[in-house]
Structures are given as structure tokens and as C-alpha cells.
């Protein structure tokens, strides 16, 4: 057996105690017609072989590129203390804390995570986490429908397309409607939520709106008029869902400041490596009056029989195992270990450190914007941004590929992120963080200038000098 302890002797003893000759007899209950034939899988590898194969596979991924790619997943400095904590077996091999007396470790760390995110968002109730930012956004939208008993939600196109698509999938299952709020196409507010369109969409007495979902910063990196959006839709009796990026909350006005009712967001930037898509961390928070609508686990502080402070999963009657078909959501888990990572990260940075991460990203992004504009790729939109923005690059998909072969991951072509929007066809979405160096920025700008002034059809120089 690969990871198990049973010797042939152990097995005979167990069989003997059961009075049977072979373990096959324990499977006789399976009807003969549906007994499986042998599985056709590659033979089992020894640990040495397995590690070699894993190294080979890992080696086929390019993680050495000078990366300017964000779009919801960001490269940050990960203090090694985070992983050290995650590697404690008592944390990562524990189950859901159903027996609180022997789970105070997990319970307190999640309570602390809830508290830290409450500080960052300004909202009082933070769930023990959802699967990721996209599903948290979908669940937040469903919350607005439950709370208002209305059946229609408006989602700004400033919200990440993957979150919007997830929301659509969830809404289809729930037979609820979601309509898009377009972005402004031209002028000073280009790329942000179209407030006039929002007003028109809200003004439909036959189809009242349960909630409005907008992101800050939005998917194009731009800062949205969240206060205005909130005012407009509260006037129509709808709830406000703000989709936020947690590191930015160190320096940007938080959801509480612009009267959001619910906040959702992707917690990956808080100490979780990119890992090609997950596991990530769904942040979900709400104002106190909505606490009974929030799906997922909640950890609360209480006392034990001797009066000691202790932590426990609470308000569990809302959850699926008790409410069953009437549960708000079927979620049975949370991303506990990822929430732990986020808590350790925020604690390891401290308020000043987190602010510095956000501010350094902003500074690097300004440097990047200037360098790219100089190289012939100005920003697509004039509005304020934090650390991510779109630049105009003709034939962006092809330029992106050529830069890739020079060792530069030049963000993402907007045409790939948002295939349905022709106004974004000639654009790249790029970002900078505290990990972005001036050398990388110079390299990017130099290579881009080269590409933009090169004649189409000429061969590209082999990558080699492109690697950092």
C-alpha cells in the first residue's frame, strides 16, 4: 500500500475476525452486472519518479517572464512566514471545526480573518469565505434578491467578465434576471459605469431592481464613481454590491464609505500565489441587518462552560445541512486555509506595510504608464486608476505574442478579456505591483517601441535576451 500501514498479517487478522477468507467477499453486495473491470491507468510511480515527473511538468510552465499581467490576479511579495504557518499540519490537515473544543486554532484564525476584512471593508459581517471572487459576487447578487424579494439585478460591465459570467450561471439556475449596465464609451468618464444608462435601467416600475453590482477599481483598472452609483440605486430601493480588490482597500475609500450594503471580492492578492487559477478566496461581507442572508460559515466568539473566551461556528441553522432545500446556498465549506493565508499576510504586513504595497504599485504603474506612452502606447482612458490600466496598441494580439517571445508578458489583450467589445480591440490591459522593477518596465517599453515601429512581416529576434 502506498500510504497506508497494513501488512498482510494485519489484513489476515482483520479477515479472521470477520470470519471471511478474502476482502472480495465484502464487495459481493455489488451486483455482478455492474462490477468494474480493472482500471486502465498509468502504473503507480515511486516517490522519486513522481517528483521527477512533477519537476518536468513544472518546467514546461513559463514563470520567468517579465509579467505585467493582472486582470484580477496579482503578483505580490509573499512573506515566507505565511507559508510556514500554512504548513503546520494541525491547520492544514484539520477538518471543518464541528467539534469546537478541539478546533480553537482554526476557529480563532477564521474569526481573526473575519475581523481583518471587516476593518478593510468597513462592513461588520464578513463570512468565513466563499470559493472565489467570482462566486462571491454571484452570491452577493443572489443576496440582494432574497433581501428585497425582487428578481432583477443590474451588473456593470466594469465588473470582471468572469465574475459576470459566473453570476449569469447562478442566476439561470435561480430563474432570476440580470441586465448589464454599459460603460461610457468616450470622454472624461470613458471606461467607467454609464450613470445615465444606470438611471434608465433603474427606472422600470414593472421590473424593480434588487441590487446593483459595480467594481472598484473596475476591470479596466479605472476608479468608479461609487458614491454616485450608490445614491442612484438606493433611491430606487435597490441594494448596492461593491466588488473590491482587498489590497487597494488600504488606500481607497472602502465599501462602508460609499454606503455599499454588500462587498464581494477576490482575496488572492492577500498572500495567495496565482497557481493558475485557484484555490483562491471569495470575500463576502455585508452590513449587520443582512446577516441572516449571507451564505456560508460564520465564526462567532462566545464563552465555554468555565467562562473562557472561545470561538464557534454560529448561526448554523442557515446552512445547508440543516435548512436543506431552503438553505440560502448549498455551500458546505469555506476556503479556510486560504483565509488563514490572507490573515497571516495582512498581519505580517501590518497597516503600514499593506498601504506601502498599494502605494508602491501605484507609483510603479505611473512609471509604466509614462514609459509606455513614450514608447507609442498611450492610455486608452483618461480617468484615474490605481495600479492597472489599458493602453492603445494596434494589432494588440499579435504584438502581445511577439513580446511574449521576447520574454515579456505584456498584460492581456483586451480583445481576449472582453471579446464582445469592439472599442477595446486595440488594447492591452497592464498592471504593476511592488514586484515590478524599473528594469522590467524599461525592457517592456523598449521592446514595445521596437514592435510598434517595426515593419509587419519582418522576423522577430529570437528570445534569449528577453529573460530576466
Amino acid at each position: 500500500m502506498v500510504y497506508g500501514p497494513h501488512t498482510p498479517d494485519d489484513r489476515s487478522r482483520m479477515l479472521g475476525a470477520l470470519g471471511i477468507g478474502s476482502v472480495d467477499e465484502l464487495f459481493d453486495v455489488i451486483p455482478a452486472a455492474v462490477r468494474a473491470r480493472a482500471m486502465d491507468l498509468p502504473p503507480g510511480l515511486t516517490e522519486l519518479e513522481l517528483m521527477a515527473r512533477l519537476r518536468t511538468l513544472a518546467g514546461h510552465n513559463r514563470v520567468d517572464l517579465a509579467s505585467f499581467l493582472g486582470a484580477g490576479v496579482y503578483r505580490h511579495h509573499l512573506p515566507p512566514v505565511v507559508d510556514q504557518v500554512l504548513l503546520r499540519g494541525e491547520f492544514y490537515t484539520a477538518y471543518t471545526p464541528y467539534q469546537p473544543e478541539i478546533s480553537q486554532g482554526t476557529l480563532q484564525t477564521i474569526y481573526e480573518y473575519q475581523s481583518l476584512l471587516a476593518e478593510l471593508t468597513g462592513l461588520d459581517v464578513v463570512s468565513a469565505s466563499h470559493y472565489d471572487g467570482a462566486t462571491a459576487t454571484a452570491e452577493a447578487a443572489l443576496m440582494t434578491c432574497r433581501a428585497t424579494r425582487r428578481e432583477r439585478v443590474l451588473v456593470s460591465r466594469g465588473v470582471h467578465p468572469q465574475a459576470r459570467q459566473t453570476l449569469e450561471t447562478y442566476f439561470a439556475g435561480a430563474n432570476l434576471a440580470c441586465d448589464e449596465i454599459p460603460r461610457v464609451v468616450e470622454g472624461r468618464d470613458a471606461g467607467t459605469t454609464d450613470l445615465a444608462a444606470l438611471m434608465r435601467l433603474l427606472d422600470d416600475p414593472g421590473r424593480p431592481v434588487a441590487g446593483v453590482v459595480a467594481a472598484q477599481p473596475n476591470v479596466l483598472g479605472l476608479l468608479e464613481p461609487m458614491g454616485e452609483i450608490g445614491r442612484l440605486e438606493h433611491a430606487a430601493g435597490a441594494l448596492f454590491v461593491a466588488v473590491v480588490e482587498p489590497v487597494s482597500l488600504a488606500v481607497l475609500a472602502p465599501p462602508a464609505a460609499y454606503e455599499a450594503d454588500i462587498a464581494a471580492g477576490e482575496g488572492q492578492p492577500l498572500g495567495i500565489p496565482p497557481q493558475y487559477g485557484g484555490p483562491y478566496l471569495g470575500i463576502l461581507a455585508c452590513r449587520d441587518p443582512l446577516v441572516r442572508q449571507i451564505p456560508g460559515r460564520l465564526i462567532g466568539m462566545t464563552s465555554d462552560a468555565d467562562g473562557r473566551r472561545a470561538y464557534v461556528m454560529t448561526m448554523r441553522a442557515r446552512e445547508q445541512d440543516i435548512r436543506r432545500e431552503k438553505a440560502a446556498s448549498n455551500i458546505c465549506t469555506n476556503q479556510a486555509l486560504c483565509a488563514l493565508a490572507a490573515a497571516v499576510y495582512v498581519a505580517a504586513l501590518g497597516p503600514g506595510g499593506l498601504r506601502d504595497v498599494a502605494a508602491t504599485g501605484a507609483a510603479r504603474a505611473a512609471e509604466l504608464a509614462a514609459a509606455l506612452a513614450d514608447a507609442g502606447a498611450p492610455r486608452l482612458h483618461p480617468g484615474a486608476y490605481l495600479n492597472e490600466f489599458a493602453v492603445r496598441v494596434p494589432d494588440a494580439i499579435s504584438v502581445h505574442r511577439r513580446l511574449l517571445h521576447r520574454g515579456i508578458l505584456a498584460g492581456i489583450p483586451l480583445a481576449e478579456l472582453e471579446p464582445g467589445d469592439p472599442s477595446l480591440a486595440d488594447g492591452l490591459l497592464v498592471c504593476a505591483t511592488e514586484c515590478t522593477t524599473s528594469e522590467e518596465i524599461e525592457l517592456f517599453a523598449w521592446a514595445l517601441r521596437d514592435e510598434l515601429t517595426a515593419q509587419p512581416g519582418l522576423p522577430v529576434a529570437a528570445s534569449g535576451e528577453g529573460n530576466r
Partner: protein
Amino acid sequence: MSVTGPKLQPTLFELSGTGRAAGRRIPAPPADALDRLPVAARRAVPPALPEVDEASLVRHYVNLSQLNWGVDTGFYPLGSCTMKYNPKVNEWAARLPGFAALHPLAPDETAQGTLEMLWELEQDLAEISGMAAVTLQPAAGAQGELTGMLLVRAYHRARLDLERTDVLIPDSAHGTNPATASMAGFRTVNIPSASDGGVDLEAFRAALGPRSAAIMITNPSTLGLFERRIVELLEMVHAAGALAYMDGANLNAILGRFRPGEAGFDVMHFNVHKTFATPHGGGGPGAGPVGVRGPLIPFLPAPRVLREPGGTFRLERPGERPASIGRMRAHVGNVGILLRAWAYIRAHGAEGLREVSDDAVLAANYLRGRLEADGAYEVPFPGPCAHEFIASAAGLKRATGVRTLDVAKRLIDKGYHPPTIYFPHTVDEAMLIEPTETERLETLDAFADALLEIAREAHQTPELVTSAPHSAPVRRLDEATAARQPNLRWRPGNRAELPNAG
């Protein structure tokens, strides 16, 4: 549980002090870095996050971890959770920079290693389950269930059959099943179980009809029993035009012995954090891949991982498969977790996986036999069981007043994590015990001895049991106040006794 040493800890906020260095993690940004942002968009009041030096931070977490019980601590016989050993090589694998640092939106050509691994995992799971195709997208078993039921919905709508509004679910099912059915827009029809714990075929037959979209069955069941009437049930379901969904939570009992897709299930989910040993993490993250037979393939979530004729791999492009139900979440899946499952399968091969189920089922039957022989607890269903079994303290409660909850808490004093209790709801004072295949025989015997000792204590000194645990870091908690006056975040001046600083 012997917990010498670990002490309760104050919160991070109580450890905080202005100016306590959190370490110089990154160089300071320029002072004017944020000046270009409009004042209205900026944060007026900084968040009151704790400032803690790294040494105190580490002590905080190390001490907290010692208040916890994991598989790495000791026996964890939580029925339906499959708390098997989590191999450390998988932790090493997930942390390789080639895997960990890869951005999900990076071009396919830069992600060939991960894409190949994901594609292989899809093939592996399809082979293990006898399904035609697998999606790795769902983030958890419950999300896999939702995916599966949305596939059912899409299938019937594509056939223009909009009358199929019902999902039939046995009353012994896990709560996620009916919750999922509701989320997918279906009405749950609860079907009582037969007295032998299996599905009541006649009840199903009566309930199946033109309004039935699907049944959701856990097999082996939540009672730890293989459904002996599965062939008839599946025939009945298909004859009614409905689909059969299998909750794959109990796959650890049937690896190499039963392949759901081959047997006739149309769709199922896997819990990789159960069967395939990815760590539970204190409640997550996991992953819930979904397997389907041919007719459901067009509806699978997008994007799928594809292999090109030349042997390279890519993700499906947006719009490439219009019948897809869309996305269940951002990106392609919980890749870090899926990688661990891939490694587990590679380490075992077909023979190794079959041996896993053999040993899991043997261990469960052995432990069951020990309790059945003694009689202190009822073992309601005649054997053999699958990889887990139900015992009940109903008789003990009648005789002594000591309930399953008390037995569970007293097990903590004996050095064990309690089994699953009060699930499934169909058995009174239930304990669902799943030893898994990675526990030594001595441990199984010692656990049986401990349970039997508690039964004796229940007769002789019941107070000892009903006021347990005595040796855990905290005693029984006031859950009523926690629910009535929820305290879900730290505020200065929180009530309840402050523990001595660790």
C-alpha cells in the same frame, strides 16, 4: 487528547501595538505615490489593522495550531469525510514555482505543464468513474453538485422538455443535495428509505414521472451501504426519462470495484479532498470535479482543457462550445488542489487505488465487527458495510441518559476526534464512523476499546460523560448565546475572559 502546553491566545488585535515593527517587507514608496488619485476616492481613515512583530506573530499561530486537531495529530474517524493521510510530497509539488507562480490568464503556450497535468487528471477521473468526460472547474463538492444539476437542467431544456421540475432525493442524503436542487431551480421530492437503509424502490417508482428531472443518490449511501438495488433503480429512472446523479462523496469505498458511469449514472461529482487525499485545510479549499456520460458533454462548463493533434494543450476559447452552461467560477479550477489529486493518483496507479478501497472497506468492517460483537452500541444495519458504518447510542440513552453528543465529547478526553454525529438524520443518536485505509490496526482496536469504555462509564459514572470534555483546551461552548447575540468580528472591549497571553 493530551494537550500539554497549548494555551489559549489573545487575538491579533490584542497583540498589536503602534510602532511594533511588522518587518521591513518592501522598500518604502515615494511619498507622493497616491497624490494623483482624486481625494474622494481615497481612504480617509486608515484601517485599524494590527501591528505585530514577526516573532509574536509566529508564536500566535504556532500556539493556535496546537489548539487544533488534524489528521497529522491523530485518528479522525469522521464518517463521510474520508480523513485519510495527506501525503507530504503533494505539498512539495504544489509549491514548485513552476506551478505556484503561473498566472491563470497567461497564454496557453506558457502553461503547457499545468494544462497537461489537468488534461491527464480529467482522463484519470473519467477512467476511474467510467464516465466519458470530466470538468475540473467546480471549487468544492457542493459546487460540483450544483454544476451537475445545472447540466441536468440544460439537458432537459435542450430537449425542449420544460416540465421536469422535480429532483428525487432519499431522506438520508447530505443536506447539500436538496440545497443544490433548489439553487438549480428544482423542487426536491424527499423519498423515504427502506428499512434496510437502502432506497425504497417502490417509493421511487411511485414518485418518478414526467416531472422528474433527476434523482440524486449517494452510493455507497450515507449509511455506509452499497445500494444493492442500483441496477433496477437506474433502469427505472431512465425509463421515466430522468437522469441519475451520483454524489461521489463515498468513492473511497468502490475504487476499482464499481464505476458509476459504466453502471448507468449520467453525472457525478468527486470530492478530491476526500478520496484523493488533498488536505481539508480546516474546512477548505477542496475541489469537486464532475464526470458525465456522453449526452451531457456539450453542456459542460467552459473552458475545457483540450489536447491538440500535435500533442500541445490549450483552453477552449470563449464561444467555442455554445451549449455550455457557462462558468461556475473564475478560471479553470482549484488547480493547486487538483495537482495534489493528480499526484496521488500517479503514486497509486490502478492497483494502488483498488487496494485503497480494499483496505478502507476491510478496516470499516473490522471496526464495525468489534462494536457489533460487544453490543454496547447498536449497529443497526446488518453487514457488510462499505468504508463507513453507523452505530447508535439510542439504547445507551434510554438506559443511562447519556447521548451520542456526550459520547463524542468524551472521546476527546480519550484522545480521539469524534466521528460524525447526528448524521444521517434517519437514524436516532447516530454516529457515522469512517476509519479510512491509513490507520493502523492497533489504532482501530484502541478506538473500539475507548468507545466501549465510555459505554461502561455511561452506566457507572454518567456525569463524567455528560460534562465531557475535561481535557480539551476549552469545555463545552455556549452556542445559544453565540447565535442569539452574534459576535462575528473583533471590537475593543469584547466580553468574555481574556486568556493569559501565550
